[in-house]
Every structure is written in structure tokens, then in C-alpha cells.
């Protein structure tokens, strides 16, 4: 089961939905890992939509689990890449060639959806018009508010900044511009007094 119900939180925290077919002139789908399941569910609702879609997929630790299933949906184009970073030039090229009427579907981890959302916004699409569906890992992309370094796939709270080494508290305060949650030093007033790290949502 790849679905996770996030607890209610502050307004800043992104809320994800369920992908649904929408009318459009072109369809761009970007997913990672278990996000593939959301695309497969979408195809079950509207197979023709997928036949017209360009899918950019990053399997991450799921390896080959979903690749053949996605190919079997017969999308117009399927790109399978080794990492989100490696797919960015392709995403930007697709967006720079796109016109109004493009629909964007994002599925998978928060880090992928946030960063791809950011690319869409830069291309001139309002964030509210981009569909998202969370699947798979609940790991977060965190920004250290002190050194500004980004730590990917954070699974515990607190965690150690991979750039400056500070002990950071995982906040729900989110930046759409950075596509990251904010991590704040947890032991600033009493250095060394760091709570035992707990796995997120456990």
C-alpha cells in the first residue's frame, strides 16, 4: 500500500490530492518510485489520456518494479531516468516547448512533486492548476535555515544538516520557492541537548 494519510497541519504544509483526468491539449506526467501506481490508477480511468501523455519517471529504489507496467500503458513518450536532477533538463525543455492547455500530473514523493511544481510555476502555470498525488516514501526535502543547504530524503526528526552539521528540527513550514521544508537548529540555546531522533510520523 503506497498511500499515506498525512495528519492535519499548518496552512503552509502542501496538501496532495488524487490524480484525475482533465481536458487539455497536452499531458505531462512526472513521477518517482511508487508514484507510478498513481499513473497506473489514472490510466484505469482514462487510457486514452495516457496514450497522449509524456511520462517522465524516476524509479529511485523501486528499480524495475514499475517500468514495464508504465510502458504497457502505451504513453506517447516514456522517459526513465536515474535521478530527478538528471531529468531536469528534459522537464525544462518540455515546458519551454509547451503551450497553454498543457496539463501537469505529479505523483510520488514530496521532494519530486515540490521540485517539479517549481519548474511548472517558473514556466507560467499557477501551482493551483497542477495536480498532485502523494505515493510512497514520506521522506522530506529539508532546507537548513542557517546554512541554506538542502538535505534530501530526511526520515527522522531531528536530523543532522548534511552541509553544516547542525541538529535540525523538522518543521511543517514549507517554501514553494525552494520546494523544501524548513529545518531549524534544535539545540541552539543548550548545545548538545538534542532529543532522540524519531522516525517521521511514528
Amino acid at each position: 500500500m503506497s498511500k499515506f494519510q498525512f495528519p492535519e497541519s499548518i496552512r503552509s504544509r502542501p496538501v496532495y490530492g488524487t490524480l484525475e483526468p482533465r481536458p487539455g491539449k497536452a499531458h505531462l506526467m512526472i513521477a518517482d518510485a511508487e508514484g507510478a501506481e498513481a499513473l497506473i490508477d489514472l490510466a484505469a480511468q482514462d487510457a486514452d489520456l495516457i496514450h497522449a501523455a509524456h511520462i517522465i519517471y524516476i524509479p529511485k529504489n523501486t528499480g524495475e518494479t514499475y517500468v514495464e507496467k508504465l510502458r504497457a500503458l502505451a504513453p506517447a513518450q516514456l522517459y526513465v531516468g536515474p535521478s530527478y536532477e538528471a531529468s531536469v533538463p528534459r522537464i525544462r525543455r518540455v515546458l519551454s516547448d509547451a503551450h497553454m492547455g498543457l496539463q501537469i500530473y505529479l505523483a510520488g514523493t514530496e521532494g519530486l512533486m515540490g521540485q517539479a511544481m517549481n519548474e511548472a510555476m517558473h514556466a507560467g502555470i499557477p501551482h493551483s492548476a497542477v495536480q498532485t498525488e502523494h505515493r510512497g516514501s514520506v521522506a522530506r526535502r529539508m532546507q537548513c535555515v542557517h546554512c541554506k543547504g538542502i538535505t534530501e530524503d530526511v526520515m527522522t526528526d531531528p536530523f543532522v544538516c548534511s552541509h553544516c552539521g547542525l541538529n535540525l528540527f523538522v518543521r511543517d513550514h514549507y517554501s514553494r520557492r525552494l520546494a523544501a521544508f524548513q529545518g531549524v537548529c534544535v539545540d541552539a540555546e543548550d548545545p548538545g541537548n538534542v532529543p532522540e531522533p524519531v522516525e517521521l510520523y511514528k
Partner: protein
Amino acid sequence: MSAAPQKTKAGAEKIDVTVSAVVKLNALVTRFEFTRTDGKEFPPFSAGAHTVVEMNDDGRTRLNPYSLMSDPADPTIYAISVRRDDAGRGGSLFMHNNVNVGDRMTLSYPVNLFPLDLRGRKHVFLAGGIGITPFMAMIAHLERISAPWEMHYACRSKELGSYVDELTGKYPSKVHVYFDDQDQKLPLEDLLDGQPLGTHVYVCGPKGMINWVHSTAAAHGWPEEHVHSEEFLAPQPGKPFEVRLCKSDITIQVGENESLLEAIERCGVEAPFLCRGGACGQCETDVVEADGTFDHRDHWLDDEEHASGKKIMPCVSRFVGKTLVLDR
């Protein structure tokens, strides 16, 4: 439409003006230009804003909203273009027949319910008839900041096409005009197709045209945030009815040819308003008691609120029935 600014006073602040020019454009449309009577500069306005013109028609106060069409960068004049509506309630006829150069009038401070979204990469204007007016100010603004735009303007005929010559003369490659009497149709589907990502479309014209643009753009996959429209409704006449204003503790009669808001004002009760056309939400009033049928005509309240019978927009909506008690 976004929330209107919160105000405690009825209407916006006012400006005393003198009519500085009356220019007849064609058989139906006349432009009126105003300067400030106190000689100062006008407050700046953003393109797409309207002003409410106060007319003293033989003792009866008429308040009509008109889009400002002058260059927003010119603080010395405000200009509006008024289409004569012979079947209307008389405001536009008053402007055409009674307003002359040198007359003193009162305008409200500008209010913008139809702003440009300046995050847009490109702006596409769709005008129908007199709906051209807000775009005149928008074009002036976009030309100044060198932002890309194009216009598609449908009008009845060459003779009735206000500003057609001026626009096609100045911007021959950006302005496209379609004349009804020559069977020319605005090719909406074609022109929505292939617009660059980040394009915004703005429509001002008759209700049918506005609905057509919204539904066609949605079917083409345009986000609703990128489709902007403005339509002022004129209050329609209807059967007279009686209303009790419980806060003011009076009962008033609403005549056949006046709106509920006008009747409230006539009886000396201050009621908030900005657009007087069912768009801004400022005059929203709570219903305390009602025995009858509402005739909702605004596009501010949603369908659920209309059905609830708990709220009414007195600028355009009416009531048929035995009792209506408002919290005013």
C-alpha cells in the same frame, strides 16, 4: 473574483470633477473626459479599474459604474466611454443628453475588480462592443512596460466600432477586429490554441461572450486563474415590493424602476456599495426573514447562498412575495 476591500462607509471616497471634453465617437458611444475641479492631480489607478459616476437627474441621484479608459500614467484626466442604452434605466441617456463641457460632476475613487495579472507572460484581450473600454487603459499600461499582448475585438459594424481606427492604426499587428455585419466571427478556439505557457486571457463584453470564453478555455485545459472577465449588470426593473429594514426600524417600498439598494438610499439609510453591478460583493446583506421568492441576479453569491435565502445583493437582486426583512 477576489474578496473586496473591507470598508465601513457607503461607497468609495469621492472626487469633484469638471467635464473637460465630450467626444461623440459614433451613433451610440460618447467619450467623457474629466479634470479635477480643485485643479489637483487625480489619484493613480490601475488598468481595468472603474469609477462610479454620480448623476443628478432632476433631483434623482443616479450612480453608474464605468471603466476608466484613459492612460493610467496620466494623472490630469479620467476618461470614460458611455454606450447609449435607449431601453436602459436612463443613466446612459442622461450622460448623452444632459452632460456638457464645463458641468460639475462627482466621481468615486477608482476601484479595480478587473486587474491585469502582471505575472502573465502574455495578455490576450477579447472585447465585445463597449467592452473595449477597460482594455484601452490596459494596453497603455502594457505598452509602457513593453509586455506582449494581442487583442481580438468583435463589434457590430465598422460604423459602431469604437476606437477601431485608433487601435488598428497604432497597433496593426496586435489588434484584430471582427465585424458582425460582415459575418466575421472571433475565432476563439484557434486563438486559444498555441498560446505560450503563462498567457492570461481577459474578456469584457456581453454575458454570452463571457460564458463562451470561460467554457471554451476550460475545455482547452486553461487554468481558471488565467481567464479573467468583467461584466457589470444593470439592475433590471421588476414588480414593486415592500421591505422592512430592521436595524433602521423602517419599512420601505421598492419601486418598479429602482433597485433595492437605490430604495434603501432614497430612504436615507446608509448601505455599503462599490460597483453597483453585482460583482464586488460590498453590498451583501443578511436576510432576517423572508416569505416569498428571491430574484437573485448577482454573480457574487454562489448557488448555495442563493438557494439558502439568507443573503441578498441589493444592487441588482429583487424579491417577490409577502414579507422581506433585512438586517440593515
